[in-house]
């Protein structure tokens, strides 16, 4: 399907008074084919080190090994960093891809590659979530959520394909807490929205299908519907969660993010991108990682365990990745530089066999030695598991295949 925004569909949708996404290209068929899986992408922004997370090299010299020890996992011979004991214990849900590799060591370019799956990391390429929405359609509760935010990744699809961003300026939930007041207060909101719709009519007719005007109108309607949605509000309110569950996630910011992600996934078929920042550890990485790793360990392990207990892991794909790995050798400042030749990615759920390691790296975790895969392959596999033929994802204007040259990561499902 072509991801180019379809004005005719939009007009039809608007004219019929339907929500505009009903006019998206083939949403119904696509949804039917899609098998209903959701996605949680946990994006570790900054480029997490592979050596101090999922691919430690305990036998390497100390300037490569780093100062952390390792911890055993249920699989013989597979070890994680000592600060990830819960994930190590929960490895049965996880497939670790240790041989992810690419060549873009710039943050901007690397993020663009990893988050879009586009080998060219073109600035107008849409993020995976935007492609997902374009393929399966938009619904309320929102089909595409970014926590806390992911800006500038709708690409050629336009702002209509931006994720819904539930967190406000100071980190508070825009909708999540209590009963909303102000313009979005439930009493009268429907009337207000209708009034707005009426006042919009004249200009809309006057500009007669202008792209910007239509896009704005569509965004307003989409956002109003979100603000209306009791289900969305409920999903975003963490207060509904039992205290025990919240404790399990750690009651940290990251824990709340991941818990929120789980609630969004439960509320409907959703692509959630959670951005956990702070992994660009160029210098003095030990204290930084001692802070980051336990937070991640607790929250992520809780998420996987929670999903598994609720029987949702089959229907939910959890991906954990950064834009690249880090240099095998520690620098004199006690950190590591950018290194894209080898990085580790976690895949859990969505039909993948947990408790396995895919690929391997050499003695210094600098190059993959078996079954190297690229982020394009990862995106390709992801969309296959979502039931969307990845070859049909194209970007305008030249209708280029977004995941051209991608191949399935077979080991995950073997």
């Amino acid at each position, binding site marked *: 399907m072509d991801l180019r925004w379809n004005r005719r569909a939009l007009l039809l949708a608007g004219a019929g008074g339907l929500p505009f996404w009903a006019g998206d290209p083939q949403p119904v068929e696509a949804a039917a084919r899609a098998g209903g899986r959701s996605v949680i992408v946990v994006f570790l922004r900054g480029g997490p080190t592979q050596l101090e997370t999922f691919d430690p090299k305990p036998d390497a010299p100390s300037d490569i090994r780093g100062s952390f020890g390792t911890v055993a996992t249920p699989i013989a011979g597979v070890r994680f960093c000592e600060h990830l004991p819960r994930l190590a214990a929960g490895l049965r849900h996880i497939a670790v891809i240790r041989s992810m590799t690419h060549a873009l060591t710039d943050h901007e370019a690397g993020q663009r590659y990893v988050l879009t799956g586009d080998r060219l990391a073109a600035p107008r390429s849409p993020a995976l979530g935007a492609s997902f929405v374009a393929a399966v359609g938009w619904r309320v509760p929102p089909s595409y959520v970014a926590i806390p935010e992911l800006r500038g990744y709708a690409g050629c699809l336009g702002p209509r394909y931006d994720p819904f961003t539930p967190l406000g300026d100071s980190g508070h939930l825009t909708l999540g807490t209590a009963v909303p007041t102000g313009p979005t207060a439930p009493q009268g909101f429907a009337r207000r929205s209708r009034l707005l719709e009426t006042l919009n009519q004249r200009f809309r007719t006057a500009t007669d299908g202008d792209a910007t005007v239509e896009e704005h109108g569509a*965004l307003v309607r989409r956002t109003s519907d979100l603000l209306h949605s009791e289900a969305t509000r409920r999903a975003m309110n963490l207060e509904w969660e039992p205290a025990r569950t919240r404790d399990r996630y750690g009651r940290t910011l990251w824990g709340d993010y991941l818990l929120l992600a789980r609630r969004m996934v439960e509320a409907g078929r959703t692509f959630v991108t959670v951005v956990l920042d702070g992994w660009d550890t160029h210098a003095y990485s030990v204290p930084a990682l001692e802070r980051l790793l336990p937070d991640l360990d607790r929250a992520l392990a809780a998420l996987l365990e929670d999903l598994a207990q609720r029987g949702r892991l089959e229907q939910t794909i959890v991906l954990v990745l950064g834009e690249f790995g880090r240099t095998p050798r520690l620098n004199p400042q006690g950190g590591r530089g950018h290194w894209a030749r080898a990085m580790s990615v976690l895949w859990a759920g969505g039909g993948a066999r947990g408790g396995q390691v895919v690929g391997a790296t050499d003695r210094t975790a600098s190059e993959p030695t078996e079954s190297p895969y690229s982020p394009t392959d990862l995106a390709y596999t992801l969309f296959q598991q979502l039931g969307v033929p990845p070859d049909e994802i194209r970007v305008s204007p030249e209708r280029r295949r977004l995941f051209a040259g991608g191949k399935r990561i077979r080991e995950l499902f073997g």
Partner: protein
Amino acid sequence: MLGRRPADDHPQLVRDGRRVQPGRPEQSLLLRKATLAELHGGGRRFSVDSPDYQLLYRWIRAGAPADAPSPAQVRILPSRVTLDRPESRAPLAVWATWPDGTREEVTGLVEFRTAEPLEVQVDQQGVLRRGTRVGSSGITAQYGPHSAAITVVAPGPRAVVPRLPVRNPIDRFIGDRLAELRLPPSPDSDDREFLRRASLDTLGHLPSRDELARFLADRAPDRRARRVEAMLQDERAAWRWANFLAVWSGCDEAELRHRQGEAGGPPAEQLAYLWLDWLRYRMARDVPYPEILRGIFLATSREGKSRADWERQERALEIRMARQAYQETLYATRPTCDVYWRTETHSLRPMKCAEAVSRRFLGVNMDCVRCHDHPYERWLQSEHHGLVDILDRTTYMPSPPLRFAQKVQLALAGLLSLGLFAGGGALQVLRLRRQGRPRRAAWMRGGWGVGGALTLFALFCSLYLVRPGLPTEYQSPGLWAASVLEPVGLRGAPVAWGCGALALLLVLGVGRLQWNRRRDARAAFWLPAVGTVFLGTCLDVGYVVGRHGTVDRRGWVQVLYRKATGGETGEGVQRRWEVFVLDPAPEDRRTILLPDGTPLRLGTPDDRKPFLAWLCDPRNPWTARNFVNRIWAQYFGRGLVEPLDGLATHPATHPELLDWLAADFVAHGWSLRHLHRRILTSATYQLASRPHSGNRTDVRHYARFYPRRLSAEHLLQAVDTVLGTRSDFELPLPVPEPTVFQIPVLSPGNQTTAARAFRMLGRLPSTSDNLTSEGVLFTLSDKALWKRIEEPGGRLRRPLEQKVAPAALLREYYEVALTRPPDKAEEQAALRHLAASPSPLAGWQDLVWALLNTTEFQCQH
């Protein structure tokens, strides 16, 4: 692959034995990357079974010989193509002319590219087809480093198409293109639409009701031109365009804060404000563009002043800023804007600085060229490095240390005063001895006193006679001593304490001697006098030597004060940061080539000067075109060249118009006001935004005015106008009336300013992509905005209290927000809503909220 000079490419290709491997051609990176067997940033160029692959394979197997002659010329035939009907096809042929005059068809060997695939498509055999839109596109054929381009037109259906009226030459260019494409232009905008559009673009403000009424009452045929003229003279226009120039030239509060963190000095929001005001001052006076560039480019903090004068000036500025008593004479009237370099120079990133200069002032993006020459780029990597070198020596750092010559001067001054001290004392002693006083009495009574007086005299003499550009308060015996002691390694706290102790001992010793000899009134006078001078001098020496060595200290009084108040005793006095140009090192002396081939000699005292001269030369291929392109984009929502920094690589939609606009701009003394006037008075700008069936799909030929969402600054200002409130940005300084274009500087990613901007437009970026889902969510749901609708003192409260008729109030809101009265349907809907509301206030709050969220309000159209 590496550049556009085959002679340079070849050695690069064959040298390392990886790219080209004649023994194993299939292992050559050249082939592996092009077929995507290896990762390749440029994607797949051809497949293994293509003729291209075979040709390259054979060439590599033959040892990659470098004997390819270069064609003298490459041409595409036919040179102009019109694809008249939907199913039209047209084959292209590319001919190379060799140096010996023979011609050869190379169609199969070139790479074809289309600039607008939605309008014209081309396949690799050179066959043209129409796209889905009416329009035209440049088609480029790339033969090695040589390229040729033609324009292909895909016009609309045959019909009689109305001509765009010609009000000034811009319309000729636009109208010719529209006629050629058979795109019918929309009709002229009506007066209300024009006034709203022009006010927002020129002033950054919605027109007030008065302005609207006056404009509508004016029926003279030249009313638009006169209105444009009046707006261009308006103070608000200066603020609005200064804001644009500030954002464009890189004024980013977050960035300033980041840099200023190391430097101390005024807070970032104040610096951003100074930058803005400096530009505003020039906008108000229509200063020619090269003058503005000069002020930015050749900026130094001191501007040739002595350090003392500069520091005085800085301190005065800081104090006035802190007291909220800034006046334009404190910064805006300065010849140069040194704040620019406070963000732009960074010892770690001269490269980014050079790239920013190129992007902003030349419209040339250097992302590719940073690492390697690129076949499609006009700049080479070496030229990029040259630009880096030009700007590299401009720094923002603590003031430069004293040069050797200055230290010698200082030492001489010190010696002079010591000599005077000794000489004066000796003379006095001699005089007393001649009077027959005993030796000891002569020394004690005469020497010290007169010597001390002469010392003071000598000090002042030396201060004003020998001024090596140091602030006077910094010149002291301590400083001189420091300049002598420091080079031999005597510095730090022990020296300071030693000096202090010595001073105390001497004073006590002398005092005791004096007191013992003559217990009289004269001694009682001399003792404290001499003691104070002596103690002060010695403490001064100690402090200077102990702290910083040569330059930065504010004298011993301050030390005592700090000790007494428990102030920053540990830190010492920091050297003030300033923008200056480092002296050239011997290796800086070299000649570089600018991208158009102009040689430039580096290693002069300020290399920015010759670069600026090149930049402002009317023959410079980019400067003027870049600027008019950016201004054009402000008015029309898209540049004649897109992206805006693609001037060297991307074709213009209307090349002749761009050239003419640039030439016209230069010919009229680089006057911004003239440029604005040209655009604002053109029929093109004044077209209605309403499309009709013939031009709805047009997005770049200007058959109508394209609506676009207002930028954050505009929207914020417009909301204020409608609500009758004023956003409190905690501006560093009170803004003069009339209300100006308010957000000081809001730039993408600038969280803090955005937050300060009443968390209102929260996170609206002020980029060309103004439409974001977050922005829409924000205006729909923000509580602060909701509350401000009924804020006391706003537009709503008073009419409600006075029970103004709803229809009249509605009309007022509509005229302010949308520059038009409500139509019947709208009025009915609004009144119905009011009638059904629990209270008038609640009803009006809903109504105004809805008005602020309408597309019509949030768009420029």
